[in-house]
C-alpha cells in the first residue's frame, strides 16, 4: 500500500473505533446494573445449581442478607426525619444483622422529594440518614459499620410531582456492602 492508503486505513480504523464507543456503553452499564442489584440472586443461582464441586451453599451471613434485602427502604413524612412506627421493625432487622456480623458494613443513602432548594434538600436527606444511623447505633451497631450519604432530591426513586411520587422519594435506602 502507498503511504496515503496506509494512513487512510489507520484513520478508518480509528474512526470506526471511535464510532464503536457510544454503542459499547450500554452493555457495560447494564452489566454493572446487574452486579449491583442482583448480588443475592447470583448467590442463590450457584446454590441452586449445586452440581459443580466449586458451588457453595450460601453462608449464614449471605442468607441473612438475602432476607434483609426484601425490606431495605425506610420512608418518611414531608419535612420529617422521624422514623415512622411501621419502619421500626425494618431498622431493627438491619440492626440485628449488623450486630451479628460485626464485619458487615451498611451505607445509608438519604433522599428527599423534589420540593424546595437542592442544597437544602441535601441537608434534609442527611438528617434522615442520620436518624436511621442513630436508631442502628442505639441497637448496638458500631459507628464504624455505618457510612451515610445524602443525595437530596438528585436521585428520585420515581418520577412525578404528585404526592404519591413525593412519598416514595422521601426515603433512606440501607445498602449493604458485599
Amino acid at each position, binding site marked *: *500500500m502507498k503511504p*496515503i*492508503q496506509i*494512513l*487512510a*486505513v489507520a*484513520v*478508518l480504523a480509528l*474512526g*470506526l473505533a*471511535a*464510532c464503536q464507543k*457510544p454503542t459499547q*456503553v*450500554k452493555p457495560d*452499564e*447494564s452489566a*454493572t*446494573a446487574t452486579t*449491583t442489584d442482583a448480588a443475592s440472586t447470583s448467590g442463590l443461582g450457584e446454590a441452586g445449581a449445586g452440581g459443580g464441586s466449586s458451588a457453595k451453599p450460601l453462608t449464614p451471613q449471605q442468607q441473612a442478607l438475602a432476607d434483609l434485602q426484601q425490606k431495605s427502604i425506610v420512608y418518611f413524612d414531608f419535612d420529617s426525619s422521624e422514623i415512622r412506627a411501621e419502619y421500626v421493625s425494618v431498622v431493627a432487622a438491619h440492626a440485628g444483622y449488623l450486630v451479628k456480623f460485626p464485619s458487615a458494613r451498611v451505607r445509608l443513602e438519604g433522599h428527599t422529594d*423534589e*420540593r*424546595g*432548594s*437542592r*442544597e*437544602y434538600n*441535601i*441537608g*434534609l436527606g*442527611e*438528617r434522615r*440518614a*442520620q436518624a436511621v*444511623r442513630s436508631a442502628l447505633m442505639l441497637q448496638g451497631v458500631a459507628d464504624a459499620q455505618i457510612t*451515610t*450519604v*445524602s*443525595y*437530596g432530591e*438528585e*436521585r428520585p426513586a420515581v*418520577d*412525578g*410531582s404528585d404526592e404519591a411520587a413525593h412519598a416514595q422519594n422521601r426515603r433512606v435506602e440501607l445498602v449493604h456492602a458485599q
Partner: protein
Amino acid sequence: MLLRFPGTLRSFTSLALLACALLLVAPATEAQLRLDITQGVRDAVPIAVVPFGGQAEGAATDVAAVIANDLQMSGRFAPLERRDLVSRPTRGEEIRFEDWRLLRSDFIVVGRIEPDGTALAVTFELFNVRTGAALLAERLPSTERGLRATAHRIADLVFERLTGTPGAFSTRIAYVTVDGRPPSQRFRLVVADADGFNPRTITETTEPIMSPAWSPDGREVAYVSFESKVSAVYVQRLATGERRRVSARAGINGAPAWSPDGRQLALTLSRDGNLDIYTLDLGTQALTRITTDDAIDTEAEWSRDGRSLYFTSDRAGNAQVYRVVLDGARRAERVTFTNGYNARPRLSPDGKELALVTLDRGGYRIGVLDLESRNLRVITNARQDESPSFAPNGAMVIYGTRDRGKGTLAIASSDGRFQQRLSSDQGDVREPAWSPFPAR
C-alpha cells in the same frame, strides 16, 4: 481533500466515516437551549433589526437574527418579524423612517459586514424611528468565527443605549443536564453562551452534579460531584479543562460560593450529619468554621464587600435566610420574615437585593428581596421554581423550573414583569448559573 480508500471498501467506508464524522461533530448529547416565545411581553418596545448587508440569506451566523434574539430574551424589546420588514436598508441614509413608523417600530438597527484586510468589520447604526435621530453608530472589528460575539456586543450596546443598563448578552451560563435513569444516568455540567448557543460539556458522570458557581473572573467554575459515590467540591479551569478537588472531607461537601476576590470558597460541610458553613482559603487550604448551630446551615452567598455571608438555615424551625458577619462574634441575624420557606439566596450585582426560593401560595417560586426595605416581591408563578441566578447586569434572573414533568431553564426580569422559557429537546436541564461580565 479526498482520501483514497482501498477499492472494495471505498464506498461503504466513506459512508461509515461520514456518518461517524457527523456524530462526532454534532454530539446529540449536548442539547441546545432556545428561547420559547410563548407570549408577547406587555410594554416590550418594538424594534426592527434589519438583516445586515454583506451577508447572504442563510449565512452561518445571521448577525441581525442573533441581535434580535438577544433583545427578545431580555423581555424589554419586541423585535419585528423578519417577514414584516418592508425594506432592507443597510445604512442610515437608506432608511425611509415613515415606512417604519407605519410598522409601529420605535427603533431600527441597520448594519453591514465588510472585508477589512484579512478580517471583517461590522458597522451598525441605531435610530429613533419617530424622530429620525441617530443614537449609535459604531464600526467593530470582527472575523468570520467571531461574528456571533460581535452580534452579542452590538446587542449589548443597543440595550445599554436604550435602557441605561449594560447588556449582558456577551456572557455565558453554566447548567446541569440529566439524561436517562440510574445506573445509566448521565449528569453533565455544560457551559453555553447566554443565548444557549454553543453548549460544551465540561464534565460528565453517572453520579449527580450540583451547584455550579462561577469564579469572579469568569475563568473557573466550582461545583459538586458525586462521581466518587460521595460528594466532593471541584474547581475546573474552563480554558484548559484542568480541575482540582478542593474538598472531599468525610460527610457532605456542598454549596460552593466564591468570595468576591476569588481567593476563598464558602462551603457546606458536615460533622456527624450536622451541616455548617465553612470558608476555605484556596491558597493556604486554611478552613474556618463560620456557623456552629445544630440546624441545617447551607447555601452560602458572599456580600459584595466580602465581609459577610448570607445563607439558608432552619434553626428557627423552617428554612429562612440569615446573614453572618465574618469578623468577631459571627452572630447570625435573620434576613427573611415573610413566607414559611426562603432558601438559596443569591445577591444582585449591586448588592442591594437577594434572589431566593420562596414558598408562595403553595408553590416554590423565585422571590427578590430588597435588603433595605425588606420588601419581598415574587417574580415567577410556577410551582417548582428554584436555583435563581442574577445576570451580571442585574436586569434578569435565570432559574430552573419544571415544564410538562421536565426540568427546564427560564428567565425572568428582575422586576417580575415577564418570564420566558429556555427549552431543550431532551433530558432535564437545571441549576443555571450566570457568568460575570467577561474581562475586557
